[in-house]
């Protein structure tokens, strides 16, 4: 798994969250001059015990994407890791997407970049809005390994969505999402 490690922080609260979760990693930097496009964060898949609720939500959310990317790469809708990071209806949605691509003999390779806003936590439910970028996450033919030329629906590959997470033990499961258009 490879992810770009640049972190763009434009919201003070986001900086606090990221600092608290120690997710900057090597190569993390603040760069307010960069355009408000997506950025990636690095984060461990398992939140630390000392993490704040917001940081553990963010960590779980990024762990969810790690599993989504892994399932799409393996073209395996039943990848066990998915159930550890998501629950229905989102889990079924992800599996259906992987399954569709698999039937078409496609696998997605590459990385997804993120520009999440600070999560909102209310009891055992959290919401997080992200501008994610799938322009570098592209299909290859499962048989030949050759890339498939595609056009991003949005033209840019960047989409905004609001994710809902439900507390599960020390972490969070992504349970739903609502598409909010491009970003």
């Amino acid at each position: 798994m490879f992810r770009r490690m640049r972190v763009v922080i434009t919201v003070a609260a986001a900086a606090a969250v990221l600092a608290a979760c120690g997710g900057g990693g090597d190569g993390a930097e603040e760069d307010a001059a960069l355009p408000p496009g997506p950025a990636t964060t690095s984060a461990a898949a398992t939140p630390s015990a000392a993490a704040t609720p917001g940081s553990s939500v963010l960590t779980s959310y990024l762990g969810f994407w790690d599993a989504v990317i892994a399932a799409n790469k393996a073209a395996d809708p039943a990848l066990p890791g998915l159930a550890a990071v998501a629950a229905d209806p989102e889990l079924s949605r992800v599996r259906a997407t992987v399954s569709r691509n698999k039937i078409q003999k496609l696998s997605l390779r590459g990385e997804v970049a993120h520009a999440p806003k600070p999560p909102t936590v209310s009891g055992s439910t959290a919401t997080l809005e992200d501008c994610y970028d799938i322009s570098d996450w592209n299909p290859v033919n499962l048989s030949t390994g050759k890339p498939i030329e595609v056009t991003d629906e949005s033209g840019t590959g960047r989409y905004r969505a609001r994710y809902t997470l439900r507390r599960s033990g020390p972490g969070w499961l992504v349970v739903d999402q609502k598409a909010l258009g491009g970003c």
Partner: protein
Amino acid sequence: MRRVLLLLAAVVLGALLLPANPAAAAGPRCHQEAVKNPDGSITYHLVCTTVVPGDPGSGGGEEDCGQDTANLPYEGAPFCMGGIPCQYTDNIVPLAPPATPAPEGQKWQARYCTDGTKVLVLTGGNQPRPLIVQAQEAFGNLAPPAATVRHSPDTRGIVKLETWFWLDGASFGELHGTSAEGLVAVAVPDSTVWTTGDGGSVTCAGPGQAYSAGATSDCTHTYTRASARYDGTVARNWVVHYEQGGAPITIPGAPVALNANTAWALAVAEAQVLTGGR
């Protein structure tokens, strides 16, 4: 009689020897386009353009892999993929049925290619309409606003004095019309043509110049006879082009000019009966 027979033979022989021109065949020329959705799923769309016989500009430079003459076994429109003719079909035999239902507006189809491959793909369901049809819809959505005609002198014209004509700025701006697929017709203001009601006319670059002391205008007319009412018209002319995803696109046969006519009236008096200036 012998000369006539020879001529007929030559005509028949010529017709037999002339090669068929596949480019002259009318019909859609298609290619496949894969679209990546926000969730990473891939759907396929068949993009077709209408080929006009004898028009080398039509077809948009689509790939020609012999798909028009290939002997394809199914019902779908032929297109090129990877340099070989392919087509979509609802007949998925002998493939396994899809494991998941198709999302709304899409459907599972088999993509058959002449290399013998047949795979299940999720297609866009409603195929995009030909570009010319999209262009006509976009053009039809261009809506010129009402024209506000101005002139100086502003109450009535004066014999032997230049009357200036112009349109309010909002009357003659750039217009946009969009098709359901997002093709945009862009109408850029070009010229105005004024008929002055006394048999004269004047063509102006743009909307004309609002009168002000020291200004100049190419949009004027000098009346030579007084009248209680001259009925004139102004035609606004726009030049139209088309854009797809923000980039200009040439669509053979699509309208390239838009005009709108507006009537107006003006009284013209002899100078000696007037008491004021402009």
